[in-house]
């Protein structure tokens, strides 16, 4: 007989307090506060949300275990309130075969803190030339449904068209890193007045928007599913909004840093602010927040990109692109979307759990806090503040742009399929 756990007095989506009873890995009952029976976890003052699902992480394993491993990345994810993450394919070797995606899948299961769903590469070696064996990855143990050459753009229109068509056979989705390569040779930061002043080669908005525009039209033409990774410009938002209004099957994500940080930070030449796509302008941030609020952008996704210290402790041009995101995503969401009143808690859960799970086919996730659903639950303290200290993060890397910042909202307890992964803000085991 399995014991029940009673999450006592918790407020689902910040609504009326209840007892959530977890049994056998699922939500068995949601009952009046104080009436549930079983081992009690006092959750008064806490908000219950469905476990977060991150469509976009770089766990670096295999190949760059000095930056992150599936184990440390899973720890960071769990501590950030996630119960599932999608691991991008730009590892070494590239996740372009069933063998590699199965390895990633198994390592994720072994660690057991979050479900790690491998993303398969679209093209062999991310080279953009030949389709990888997408079908083999789809039918592997990992059951890959999301494919991406993230880090590189599938820039060849014919390859992109074929990829979109091909994955229809198993309801897959192509997640595009939208970056026109010829417009972004050696690009270092957002192209604008500041890039000209700083003498850093520009990464113009149009390099993203031209690919997004092309891809939504391709998706319409072949009636397939497109997902736009890390949307960073107001222009991309307009295109996606238009495409959705036409019924085109496009979804999109935005990162926490593109909701908060502007290109002005680059004036410090501190490579912790070097990221791809680059930090943009205040006007872009406003458009991205509005789009996440109205659902034009479906999901908040971290683009968690760990890098060893030496790849950031250098001059700008020599530094790697990318920022940590898993352990700060929830707080940045609170800061940018909840405190501003743009999203309520139920809508936040929709953007951080329900929709990303649906887009990526994260089996067992994103079903919400309903009876019968797998007990993937994140309990957060909305009133807590904490100071981001990268050296204390579970990630092997320290490249967080939020170091030293006081952030709102704290992840307190996390359950994955009913099993506690995080207790009192620390790992359960």
């Amino acid at each position: 007989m399995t014991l029940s756990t009673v999450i006592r007095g918790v407020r689902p989506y910040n609504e009326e307090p209840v007892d959530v009873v977890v049994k056998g890995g699922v939500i068995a009952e949601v009952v009046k506060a104080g009436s549930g029976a079983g081992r009690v976890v006092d959750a008064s003052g806490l908000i219950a949300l469905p476990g977060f699902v991150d469509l976009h992480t770089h766990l670096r394993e295999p190949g760059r275990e000095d930056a992150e491993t599936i184990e440390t990345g899973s720890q960071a994810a769990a501590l950030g309130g996630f119960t599932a993450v999608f691991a991008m394919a730009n590892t070494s070797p590239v996740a372009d075969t069933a063998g590699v995606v199965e390895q990633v899948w198994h390592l994720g299961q072994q660690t057991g803190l979050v479900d790690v769903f491998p993303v398969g590469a679209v093209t062999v070696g991310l080279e953009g030339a030949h389709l990888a064996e997408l079908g083999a990855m789809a039918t592997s143990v990992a059951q890959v449904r999301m494919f991406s050459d993230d880090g590189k753009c599938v820039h060849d229109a014919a390859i992109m068209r074929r990829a979109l068509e091909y994955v229809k056979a198993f309801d897959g989705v192509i997640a595009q890193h939208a970056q026109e390569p010829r417009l972004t040779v050696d690009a270092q930061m957002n192209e604008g007045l500041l890039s000209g002043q700083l003498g850093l080669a520009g990464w113009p908005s149009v390099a993203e928007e031209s690919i997004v525009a092309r891809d939504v039209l391709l998706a319409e033409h072949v009636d397939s599913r497109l997902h736009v990774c890390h949307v960073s410009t107001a222009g991309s938002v307009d295109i996606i909004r238009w495409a959705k209004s036409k019924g085109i099957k496009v979804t999109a994500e935005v990162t926490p840093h593109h909701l908060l940080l502007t290109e002005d930070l680059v004036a410090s030449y501190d490579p912790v602010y070097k990221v791809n796509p680059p930090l943009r302008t205040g006007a872009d941030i406003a458009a991205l927040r509005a789009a996440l609020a109205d659902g034009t952008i479906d999901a908040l996704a971290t683009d968690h990109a760990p890098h060893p210290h030496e790849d950031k402790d250098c001059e700008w041009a020599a530094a790697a692109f990318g920022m940590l995101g898993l352990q700060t995503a929830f707080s940045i969401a609170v800061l940018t979307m909840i405190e501003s009143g743009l999203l309520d808690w139920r809508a936040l859960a929709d953007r951080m759990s329900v929709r990303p799970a649906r887009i990526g086919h994260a089996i067992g996730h994103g079903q919400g806090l309903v009876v019968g659903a797998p007990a993937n639950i994140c309990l957060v303290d909305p009133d807590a503040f904490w100071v981001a200290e990268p050296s204390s993060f579970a990630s092997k890397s320290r490249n967080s742009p939020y170091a030293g910042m006081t952030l709102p909202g704290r992840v307190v307890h996390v359950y994955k399929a009913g099993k506690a992964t995080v207790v009192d803000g620390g790992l359960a085991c």
Partner: protein
Amino acid sequence: MRHLLSAGDLDLDEACLILDTAAQLASVSDRSVKKLPTLRGRTVVNLFFEDSTRTRISFEIAAKRLSADVINFAARGSSVSKGESLKDTALTLEAMGADAVVIRHGSSGAPHRLATAGWIQGSVVNAGDGTHEHPTQALLDAFTLRHHLRDGTGDLAGLQVAIVGDILHSRVARSNVLLLRTLGAEVTVVAPPTLLPFGVADWPCVVSYNLDEVLPNVDAVMMLRVQTERMQAAYFPSENEYSRRYGLDVRRMGLLPPHAIVLHPGPMIRGMEISADVADSPRAVMAEQVANGVSIRMAVLYLLLGGMTDDDRKEL
């Protein structure tokens, strides 16, 4: 002033102080014993990640005329090419007790990084970083303009200066626009639209695509080198077309007012942005620019590392 990273960091008083100090120090170069004892016992490191014999030698002479110990550190390749990292190079120099580091680097912002990352304590002088800035070049250009077109003192209020060429990739242009503006001059940048930075309309200068229209109204024209590899990247169709539209030849020089002078930061490509006849004409002041470069760099090191003592004033 602890570092010199950007011409934009200088206010009018600081800029004039450097120019005035350079004017005083210039007299040292005219003496038989070209040396002041000011920086005796101080160590200046020339840290050059890019080959630039001219700039390196200019800083070296400047430091030596102030009696500093000079170390030339020609770093091979940046960390981009997996050589020793900028940080480790900096830590090495710090351990050796460098009082000032003069850095030339192919990466924009590298001097800024060196000055602010906490790797070294000494002063940092930007001797050219990527496509960002080259502040001592702007200072020596201002010094040259002031000598020819003003009475060698004060600011450059009302002076009209055209900067012509590859503004997009030019650190000289960026520093000059900022410094000339601070000194009160009015700058027009002239280039094909492809060689102007995005957002240049918001720079503190006028933008023109037509050199012939600009020349009659300027007191000085500064020609910038245009590297032929830009042609491969489609910034302009051919060397000939560039030269026809934006090169300074004898006909165009004739459009200038009689008093106007021609500057070039070097190295020149004769026949491309400037014709040989113009380069060799009495209006061209390139040799003076080089000489003034030494005085300006003396002034910068002087002010960063000590400033003027009473003994120095006596000796001058």
